[in-house]
């Protein structure tokens, strides 16, 4: 799911138009004392204003949903290319969301919690064949052995340790 840069220009035009329409309405309202033929145009302008507000809110909310999806797909740290498309308020929303989610996950079960952004697919096998797509350095698995993740190297690793790296694009699951 891609996130485009917040379209500030289009956005500002929208806000300005909205303000203009509102001012026209205010002027008309001032004249309405005793004159009812201006009321339909006031009502019409007000509907336009409400529609504009709804469109803007829908656009922004859709962006939030995409940003939310990024946390589940990429993890806590977003790639710079994506961050470039986000405005400051969206980064703030993302950081707050991350914090809320982390607090919630830590509270699961009453002890150390559970990372529910892992285990996204039902486990089919214990170990999987993975190929390294980029250099990632050293990687330690449960029994203490250290694996060097060098580009194009292939390894047979425990599935649960690889999930995050597969999602981040560092490893690739090889299905022979």
């Amino acid at each position: 799911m891609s996130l485009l840069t917040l379209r500030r220009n289009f956005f500002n035009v929208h806000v300005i138009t909205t303000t203009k329409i509102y001012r026209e309405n205010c002027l008309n309202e001032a004249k309405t004392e005793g004159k009812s033929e201006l009321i339909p145009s006031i009502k019409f302008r007000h509907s336009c204003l409400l529609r504009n507000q709804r469109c803007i809110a829908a656009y922004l909310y859709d962006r939030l949903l995409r940003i939310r999806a990024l946390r589940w797909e990429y993890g806590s740290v977003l790639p710079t290319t994506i961050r470039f498309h986000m405005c400051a308020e969206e980064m703030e929303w993302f950081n707050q969301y991350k914090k809320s989610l982390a607090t919630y996950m830590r509270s699961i079960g009453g002890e150390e919690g559970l990372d529910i952004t892992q285990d996204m697919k039902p486990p089919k096998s214990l170990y999987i064949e993975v190929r390294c797509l980029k250099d990632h350095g050293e990687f330690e698995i449960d029994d203490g052995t250290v694996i060097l993740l060098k580009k194009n190297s292939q390894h047979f690793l425990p599935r649960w340790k690889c999930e995050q790296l597969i999602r981040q694009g560092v490893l690739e699951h090889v299905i022979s």
Partner: protein
Amino acid sequence: RERMSDAGDLSGAEESQEEVMTPAELIAKLEEAWLNEKFSPELLENKSELVECVMEQITHMEENLQRVRKGDVKASVHRMEIDRIRFVLSSYLRSRLQKIERFFPHVLEKEKSRADGDPSFLSPEEFAFAKEYLANTEVYLKNVALKHMPPNLQSIDMLKAVPEPCLDSFVFLRVKESQENILVEPETDEQREYVVDLDEGSQHLMRYRTIAPLVASGAVQLI
């Protein structure tokens, strides 16, 4: 209140008013809750105790696993089982969180207006999460758009703006306890309401709204 006991240790369990569940029963209950939550259009009753028991069970199994000799075949099988249970639990909690995020104003409203004796739909932690989600979203909308708008348009009623769950969506279900005289409301003006009996073990495709209370009571299982 339900309590866990080790399989094979039942003879040592104390006779008390507490109901004791075997691990197998616990996991079966988890799977039922998981399927119900997955297929229901609305957020179901919160099952914190079940979650806690399952977490304890997983910890217990991982401790046992440490004691098994490495390379023993049993270790792999146990490992798989732990992963499976963890997957089901994670998937269950994810379903709930997704619904909380999707319907956040309605979920909060429902929780705020419930009476003291009624069962809670949100755990305290889920409630905190939902409140933070609402606040976070409102702050964002205000700072990016609403504060630049004319004075009478600077707020949005979230209850109106965010859609409610569609309780008329159709769900598949299996009947666990026979029910008689279930009233089915008409969908269109030409239809009339009618009554059905649900026999134990039978499977049906019905509107969720009709059988919602039966899901809550455990009389039917969504599949």
